[in-house]
């Protein structure tokens, strides 16, 4: 068994002393790793071999002096204590605004984060800058601030298109909606005509339901 010199005053002394405690921990079943490899790093092993006289001074490895002069920052031990603290999330105060923005307006396309101009030109960045500007001016709550920034940007000429989910509910009846959805017509005049027709029909229905029976006069429409 390679003897570990207890009188060593190098930083590796800990290791020699700790070897016994580590053997008790070694029920990990690391089959490929032998005892020496697991518990004693190479400097220590070579040092001990030299002390034992197995490696002569003239035969010492090239790296030995170098490693003595510039030891690694951490000893290369196989078994080490694991830091179980949770890793910190990297978050910025703008992330709140960013999250809100993307929820309402959706993805605005890819941004090359390495390129400063592409970041500066991105809609999200502009929005955040405006938001932070207004935040500094008045002490308004975040809900109103969001709408404020939208208004401000619209005034400056930047109109953002909302995601379908968040778009304002228009004054469309169910019938109209259904009709428009099933038959999308691009000509605005025709759509207007259809709208009017449907409105008329609804109006007629309402009147009919109110026990007012009146004939639907098609001539009147034109």
């Amino acid at each position, binding site marked *: 068994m390679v003897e570990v010199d207890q009188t060593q005053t190098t930083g590796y002394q800990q290791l020699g002393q700790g070897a016994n405690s580590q053997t008790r921990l070694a029920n990990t079943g690391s089959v490929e790793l032998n005892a020496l490899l697991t518990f004693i790093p190479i400097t220590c092993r070579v040092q001990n071999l030299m002390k034992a006289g197995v490696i002569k001074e003239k035969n010492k490895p090239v790296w030995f002096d170098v*490693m003595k002069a510039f030891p690694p920052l951490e000893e290369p031990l196989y078994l080490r204590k*694991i830091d179980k603290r949770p*890793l*910190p999330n990297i978050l910025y105060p703008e992330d709140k605004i960013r999250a809100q923005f993307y929820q309402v307006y959706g993805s605005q396309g890819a941004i090359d984060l390495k390129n400063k101009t592409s970041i500066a030109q991105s809609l999200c960045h502009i929005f955040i800058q405006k938001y932070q500007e207004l935040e500094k001016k008045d002490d308004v709550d975040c809900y109103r601030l969001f709408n404020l920034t939208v208004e401000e940007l619209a005034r400056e000429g930047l109109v953002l298109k909302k995601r379908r989910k968040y778009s304002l509910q228009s004054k469309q009846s169910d019938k109209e909606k259904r009709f428009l959805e099933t038959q999308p017509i691009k000509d605005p005049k025709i759509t207007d005509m259809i709208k009017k027709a449907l409105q008329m029909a609804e109006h007629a229905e309402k009147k009919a339901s109110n026990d007012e029976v009146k004939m639907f006069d098609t001539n009147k429409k034109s």
Partner: protein
Amino acid sequence: MQLCIDGHSMSPRRVFLNIVNSRVSSFVFGSNMATNVLKMWSRPFVEVVGTLKRFQATGVYQARKLATYSTNAATQKLAQQTESGTVKIQDPLQHPDYFDVHKLFTLQDLFRANVHVGHKTGLLNVHMRKYIFGVRQKICIIDLDKTVKHLQIALNFASHIAYRKGSILFINRSLQFTHLVEKTAKECGEFAQTRRWQGGCFTNSLVQYGPEVKLPDLVVFLNTQNNVFQEHAAVRDSAKMNIPTIGIVDTNCNPNLITYPVPGNDDTPDAMELYCRLFKNAILKAKQMRKEFDDHDNVM
């Protein structure tokens, strides 16, 4: 000198393990058994023959012992000359940064090459946690302050090894960068192994390659994993054979057995090119300085 330890074919056509004439040094066989160390030493081990410095016209070989490299004699010689006002050369090991390794790169360079970008949190190796700065959108971000420190120490170590004429082996089993690593090794006059690793390459080299073959003095892993995302066998084997290692460890790698780990991204081409360039420049500079020293020494 190009060395390619090729696991596939043993054909002489391919450049192979050079039976080194110019760099023979002593073997240190790491014993596989903890018990009887002396028994293992029944294998013959090659004594230091020394470097064959120069074959001069008169036919005199100037041999110099590698292992007992010391500048004491040299510095004494030089000290006499410095009185006249020439450059003062000191023992490289005394200097904290003899090869000006800190000038080779900046933190900004690392950032630009995406060295800080790790894998997702699910792939995080437990032993890499100390090198992580934080998590952004489930992606681990490596702390570049730590990377800078580790990389400087690693480059410094590699430079010193190159200065002392040690052989360096670059290992990378990521297929994307096979050519890059081989090219780097060729350009700095060192060795590369980017093919299938034969089981007994280090541990059974006597039998597989013969007694004259010398193992590398330093192994540099540009990717510590093999092509199936497991730890490369050479990490364990170099630790067994008492060979110091430098390794670029990504967030899914285990840095524990590597003597000089460098936490950083090993998947981006930008990052890999950066590392290759840094190691190449460091090694070439060290060799150049050694050459200057030798020439200076010879003159006297």
